[in-house]
């Protein structure tokens, strides 16, 4: 017998809203990277205006969460879902912001011929994209193993970021004419690395939602980036 059907419906719609927001910022990041690689200014501008939509989604979902807490007094598993959603939308919103930063970089560099193909940056972006997809599925399906996979992937991101950092510094040392572009590439790598950290947060929240335990699933995920 379903006693709290109306509450259940609202909780379900909250999860759907979060999935929509997740897919939306994931698409923003994909578009921003495409704009950067293909030096596509209109696409980059689209990402910048998408940010208002992502922000509105964030506020809308948070408002729903607060309202559910106030009016329905959720407990236990329900409470953890709502607490998770509140935290996760903040992380997703940040991914949207970093996508905008990448889009702005794409516009700045649009008139320049890149001194090297963006292989490692694209590789990072693909991994982050994969992490977002997995984290969202983990949320929807309460899949702890998938959440853990997301966290494991972060190690690879940190590894590539470090290599890229060394490589770009090397270019800059050898040819100061490359500093302008290389610095922006470094920024983009940094944005992607930060996105990955936010997605690790999402995965950790999924773990909390399911188990009630707040754990650092990727203890190494801070080390390389912060050093």
């Amino acid at each position, binding site marked *: *017998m*379903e*006693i*709290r059907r109306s*509450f259940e419906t609202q909780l379900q719609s909250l999860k759907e809203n979060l999935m929509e927001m997740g897919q939306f910022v994931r698409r923003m990041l994909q578009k921003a990277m495409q704009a950067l690689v293909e030096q596509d200014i209109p696409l980059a501008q689209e990402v910048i205006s998408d940010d208002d939509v992502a922000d509105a989604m964030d506020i809308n979902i948070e408002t729903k969460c607060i309202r559910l807490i106030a009016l329905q*007094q*959720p*407990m*236990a*598993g*329900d*409470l*953890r879902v709502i607490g998770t959603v509140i935290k996760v939308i903040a992380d997703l919103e940040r991914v949207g912001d970093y996508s905008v930063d990448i889009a702005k970089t794409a516009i700045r560099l649009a008139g320049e011929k890149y001194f090297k193909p963006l292989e490692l940056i694209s590789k990072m972006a693909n991994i982050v994209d994969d992490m977002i997809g997995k984290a969202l599925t983990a949320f929807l399906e309460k899949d702890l193993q998938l959440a853990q996979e997301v966290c494991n992937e972060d190690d690879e991101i940190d590894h590539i970021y470090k290599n890229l950092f060394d490589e770009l510094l090397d270019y800059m040392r050898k040819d100061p004419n490359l500093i302008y572009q290389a610095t922006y590439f470094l920024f983009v790598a940094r944005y992607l690395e930060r996105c990955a950290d936010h997605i690790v947060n999402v995965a950790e929240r999924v773990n909390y939602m399911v*188990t*009630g*335990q707040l754990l650092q699933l990727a203890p190494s995920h801070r080390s390389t980036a912060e050093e």
Partner: protein
Amino acid sequence: METQNVNFYYGDNQVLKNITIKIPANRITAIIGPSGCGKSTFLRLFNRMNDILEGARLEGKVLIDGVDIYDDKAIDVAMLRRRVGMVFQRPNPFPMSIFDNVAYGPRIHGLHKKKNLKEIVENALRQAALWDEVKDKLYNSAMELSGGQQQRLCIARCLAVEPEVILMDEPASALDPISTLRIEELMQELKEKYTIVIVTHNMQEAARVSDYTGFIYRGELIEFAPTVDIFEHPQNKLTEEYITGRFG
């Protein structure tokens, strides 16, 4: 205070099934569960209030300070009920003055000296956060007080005989929200000196006031844990379903 493998029957009807629990001293323990689950019967184990019902039968042990309170050689029931006070769902002041209500217990327990009695009454009323509201009308009838005040009076009456434990059976369910919060606040003050066990069907109340929560379902203690654990991540699926309102 604890129970060991307690089974309790009304005639052929088994109301409590193999309950073993240790109630922490100077803490508030809430017992929750759907209507008819046995939670009030459980509460009444501790002051032997179930004894008066016909066909009542207990197996197992109920211990206070390590002493079996169902061992008639070791325990005087009147003395037990002084040590283990009780507050009921509906405020039940006696039809007498506020003063006499609070003085009733000390008088029958032989505290006759008037000066002493006044002190006891004032003390109990202060502890029950009622003194300031009634100090100028101690000799008015208790029936003139509001529901919330009457309930605090009953708490004062219970405190006047210096109990160690206070049992509360839905103490706020007949009160308005503000009076409810006042009783809950009072409980936080009282737990410094007393061990409190409260039975409530209001889960939010249990979550607000208690340190530990036990969930009883069909006479079984399903889960007993710190209140934060019960309401944030209960271990048992039945507990989860009950407190999230998936059944009741």
